[in-house]
């Protein structure tokens, strides 16, 4: 198990390196002169040159990348084009909002999707199954920001059960934090739960047809025991993979849903940075976002190893 964890973490290094080269390279393809955007149109050639030196634009690409990487390893992802704000600070400042939404949404999705999927899988073909799967199919088709809009109006505007906007840090008040992300998490979780429910149901049905379930029945085990001991753990294998994918989808969804609630998370940061072509900021968001996703994937892999001894061994 330890070996699995170590190998997964070591495996991250080349992955992150490739991602960083990709983003660094890609974002340096931006047409036009960066300096123009920073200095405006009235700057002198001397100013241009000085800024070029300051940004290291006079160096070859690899040197630029090497410098950037060196600093990035020390936690410095560069500085905004437009002021002295550190990219790392800006992104880390925005992450709590986005991560709250992502993982809150995941929690909602798990709480709805997994039981619904198990239930539907156990009652394959029954009414519960048909209703659950119909809802899941519809749920998958709902844009989460639309759900967010629809939730916002009654709950936050008419009845004011939760604030319509604003994020409270969990460090300040857990209750306020929950309130500030609740609607967004429900909006995000709804569509994610649909995918999760379908996947769980499929996994459940698949597992229930396996030979070892027949063995378990032939052993005279109770249905409860067969369902919860023998079926669930095996059904968890594909479901856990789905969770990995869903975290990625939820993070993306959070970027948009943030806008509905006017929460200043990574979404606002990146949208604004795209609009102003603040490349270091976009780059920082992509890199740190990737770090989040791959960290989650490592956790997913570890969980995967826990339910699937085969993975652990290899």
């Amino acid at each position, binding site marked *: 198990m330890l*070996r699995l964890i*170590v*190998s997964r973490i*070591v495996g991250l290094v080349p992955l992150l390196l490739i991602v960083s080269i990709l983003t660094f390279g890609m974002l340096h393809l931006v047409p036009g002169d960066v300096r123009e955007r920073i200095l405006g149109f009235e700057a002198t050639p001397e100013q241009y040159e000085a800024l070029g030196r300051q940004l290291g634009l006079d160096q070859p690409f690899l040197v630029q990348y090497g410098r950037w990487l060196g600093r990035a390893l020390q936690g410095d992802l560069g500085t905004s084009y437009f002021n002295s704000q550190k990219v790392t600070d800006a992104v880390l400042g925005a992450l709590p909002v986005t991560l709250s939404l992502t993982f809150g949404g995941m929690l909602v999705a798990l709480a709805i999707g997994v039981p619904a999927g198990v239930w539907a899988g156990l009652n394959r073909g029954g009414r519960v199954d048909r209703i659950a799967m119909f809802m899941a199919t519809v749920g998958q088709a709902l844009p989460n920001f639309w759900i967010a809009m629809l939730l916002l109006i009654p709950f936050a505007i008419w009845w004011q059960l939760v604030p319509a906007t604003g994020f409270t840090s969990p460090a300040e008040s857990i209750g306020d934090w929950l309130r500030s992300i609740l609607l967004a998490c429900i909006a995000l979780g709804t569509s994610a739960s649909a995918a999760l429910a379908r996947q769980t149901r499929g996994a459940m049905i698949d597992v229930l047809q396996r030979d070892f379930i027949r063995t378990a029945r032939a052993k005279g085990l109770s249905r409860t025991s067969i369902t919860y001991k023998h079926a669930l753990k095996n059904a968890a294998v594909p479901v856990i993979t789905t969770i990995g994918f869903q975290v990625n989808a939820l993070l993306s969804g959070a970027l948009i849903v943030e806008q509905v609630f006017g929460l200043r998370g990574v979404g606002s940061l990146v949208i604004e940075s795209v609009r102003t072509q603040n490349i270091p900021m976009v780059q920082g968001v992509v890199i740190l976002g990737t770090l989040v996703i791959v960290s989650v994937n490592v956790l997913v892999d570890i969980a995967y190893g826990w339910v699937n001894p085969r993975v652990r061994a*290899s």
Partner: protein
Amino acid sequence: MSVLLDVADLHVHFTLRRGLFGQEKVIVRAVNGVSFMLQPGETLGIVGESGSGKSTLGRALLRLVPATSGNMRLDGREITKLRGRMLEFRRDVQVVFQDPYSSLNPAMVVADIIGEPLTLHHGMRGAARDARVGDLLEQVGLGRHQLERYPSEFSGGQRQRLAIARALASEPRVIVCDEAVSALDVSTQSQVINLLEDLQAQTRVAYLFIAHDLAVVRHISHRTGVMYLGRMMELGPTERLFEAPAHPYTRKLLDAVPVLDPAVQKRRKAARRNLPVVELPTPTRLPAGCVFHTRCPHVMDVCRHEVPEPVPVQGGGWVACHLQSSGPKLAGRPLDALG
């Protein structure tokens, strides 16, 4: 008789990588120094348990996996190192696989499946091709009207007939039958075996008949080779090999196959030696010396260190066993053979 196929000291090794960075290399010696010859119109049976390398041997012969070392000659022509499409070689050596379901492309109709080699090797197209495919279908006991059907519309036995028709299409000299009847039910199996025998009588095609079912091999083969963990342990005329096996492993295999006479079988069962259960060696961790020594009831010191060389056996063929070369003998015959 002339030699059609000559395989000498064939090795097929695979490399697996393990560990964090794939730093641990594990070499799987799937086929480990196998030699034999095949004559036109002959059936050579290859028997062995799973992991014995018999299928890999067939695939190496078909050039589906590369040989690590050794030589294969077809009609005296070196075929081990052929490159490219090898059309001429492909025409001469064909295959019938075990699984009649996955060996036929589900997206193609019969005419295309069987017609493909006709187009490739004989340039036949259109009506001419279809006519020839029809002939082939009739030859294997199917009807011309089935030209436009998909493989999924046939039963297991019929599919195996289709696979045989495809193999025949290029008019090959050798057909590798890789467990060709193993997946079939008994009543269908006998139909296919009879078909193979009839075709051989008509076309003098040679079969390399790979199977785990000794009874089938005994029935169909002229000569039989026994493989264990990548090595050929014994090879000889089928009747001799089955009636007087020279290798303890051959004997063990033969003893393990139940016979249909309950009285006889009960006697054999009572006579079995109840050896302790051991973990079987795998192709990744081959025992030193004779690969069979870990399971051999007659194991001698020499078996643990030296790989036995093939020695001729009375009644035809050869065997690679120290008992036959350096073991104790009685009246000029190895002790074990007296059983």
